[in-house]
């Protein structure tokens, strides 16, 4: 859509889980773009399909029950869905690394932390065991953990420290893309700030592109260049951070912003988006958001909205609001 060079270009990705309760449409016709060196905020409610998308990029969807039903994941010009499992193994960790949500459970409890980092290094670099362990200790220092703690086990670390170890593992092989799945959700607020600061620094230092999965718009404002808003398996709005914060168009995005409490305003109740997330085994027809949408018109329940570009780099999946926006602009000019 523009000249910027894309590291990751997801086109029409669809991932379903076949369960006894029915087909879970976790990801539906998803489009996503990420340029070199950029940080993309990936925002949505729990269950919107953010983690499935992330695991989908890594080709780590448990199968069965998960299955790719179509689309392409173009990473550095090559489709990851066409890769063999052996090729994917060298990409996982080496080219694309992931930081998981809960540091308490994402480290192996019976292995010392230096060995967990060294494992990553041995897999992707041509080094022997001793060199890998030395590099592991250096990685620990990079994330602010003293070398003498290298032989400790995960249970001897606090939550924030564990997340630092997880970050050290992810960055150990200098990945081109780092996917961080709510890296701070499980941490308390002061530690959150430290970990975010660390990730920001390291991202700059290693010149890594990053997908930051979160439901915290504050984090997005602080570290992301672009934002994708996800609802019920689709990206409904995609723009650079400034545009999205100033001129969001999709009714769901609007709802998200409205639900941020205003300190100036004296209210007892939080503003919410009316209704609940739809059941992913039984999505509404047409636009999945239409039952909750204050702008919905009759056609919304029939036609699946196209994901259209309303201004350079700003795409929205809502014909109603997009048209209104266009009219408004024309009237203004």
């Amino acid at each position, binding site marked *: 859509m523009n000249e910027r060079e894309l590291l990751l270009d997801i086109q029409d990705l669809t991932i379903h889980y076949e369960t006894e309760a029915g087909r879970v449409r976790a990801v539906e016709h998803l489009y996503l773009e990420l340029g070199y060196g950029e940080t993309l905020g990936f925002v949505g409610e729990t269950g919107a399909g953010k983690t499935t998308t992330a695991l989908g990029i890594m080709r*780590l969807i448990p199968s069965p029950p998960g299955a790719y039903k179509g689309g392409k994941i173009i990473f550095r010009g090559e489709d990851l869905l066409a890769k063999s499992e052996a090729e994917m193994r060298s990409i*996982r960790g080496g080219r694309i690394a992931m930081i998981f949500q809960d540091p308490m459970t994402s480290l192996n*409890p019976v292995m010392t932390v230096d060995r967990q980092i060294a494992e990553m290094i041995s897999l992707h670099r041509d080094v022997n065991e001793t060199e890998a362990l030395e590099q592991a200790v250096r990685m620990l220092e990079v994330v602010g953990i003293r070398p003498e703690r290298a032989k400790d086990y995960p249970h001897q670390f606090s939550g924030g420290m564990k997340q630092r170890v997880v970050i050290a593992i992810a960055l150990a092989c200098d990945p081109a893309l780092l996917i961080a799945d709510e890296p701070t959700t499980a941490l308390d607020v002061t530690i959150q700030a430290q970990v975010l600061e660390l990730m920001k620094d390291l991202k700059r230092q290693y010149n890594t592109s990053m997908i930051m999965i979160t439901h915290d718009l504050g984090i997005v404002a602080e570290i992301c260049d672009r934002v994708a808003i996800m609802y019920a398996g689709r990206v409904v709005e995609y723009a650079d951070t400034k545009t999205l914060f100033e001129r969001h168009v999709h009714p769901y995005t609007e709802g998200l912003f409205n639900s941020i409490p205003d300190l100036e305003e004296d209210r007892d109740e939080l503003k919410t988006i009316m209704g609940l997330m739809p059941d992913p085994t039984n999505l509404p027809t047409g636009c999945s958001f239409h039952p909750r949408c204050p702008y919905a018109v009759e056609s919304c329940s029939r036609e699946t909205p196209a994901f259209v570009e309303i201004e350079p780099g700003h795409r929205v999946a809502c014909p109603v609001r997009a048209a209104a926006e266009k009219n408004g602009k024309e009237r203004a000019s």
Partner: protein
Amino acid sequence: MLKYIFRRVLSLIPVLIGVTFIVFSLLYLTPGDPARMVLGDQATEEAVQQFRVKEGLDDPFIVQFVRYVGKAAFKGDIGRSYVTKRPVSDEILSAFPSTIKLAAFSVIIAICLGIPFGIISAIKQYSLFDSITMFFALVGLSMPVFWLGLLLILLFSVRLGWFPSSGFDTFSAMVLPSVALSAQVIAIVTRMTRSSMLEVIRSDYIRTARAKGQTEGKVIWRHALGNALIPIVTIVGLQFGHLLGGAILTESIFSIPGVGRLMVEAIKMRDYPLVQGGVLYVAVAFSIVNLLVDLLYAFVDPRIKAQYR
């Protein structure tokens, strides 16, 4: 760690005294006169009286008990068999090798078969392999050992003549009893391994290992198995302790001179000292195996090791 072991060994003492007390009182209260049992129906009343005095059978209960515990603790003397007149400790020690060999073989077979089968079943959950394995595990679990033992004897010793049907001194004689006894243990270990692995495989750190680009084999071997071992070690330890107490049925069917058979004979003959000694031995064996299992935990899981201070 050493301090922990020392404490654990010390804590054995009250356990053993308790066990002895219970067995001692049970036998004391059971009707029947051991003097008559030993001397036979033809013995004169005088001889019986003499025996009672000599063995201290007329002393009050508590005196007899304290005397027994004192001798056991300070002289290692737990009495003489009324029947064979040999020291009880000798009787048990001579039966012990057969029992420990049988127990060890069965447990080794169970580990070598149960753990791999459990792992593969877990990795390929709901596959044909899994269904077949689980079916045989159920069969193994529900098949009584005396029935399986008889079938094995019928087929392999009577029909085919490959293995002897009794005794336990040669390797070929050990095969059938070990197989018969291990069937249940294999089944238990397989099921435990499977469920433990299933739980571990779904955990976050397994996903982390996969996200590193690690091969599936190494994910299982390096990350999953180590974490799945704790319940497996527990169950294997319990089974081993249990078998050390003597596999009474198996020993009877295959005529193995083990501790289990010794105990049955002793109970039949009302050979009090031997029964007491036997139960004491079972308690000691079980406690030691338990201690070893607890120590093994420390090697398997560093979190548990941290608590052993």
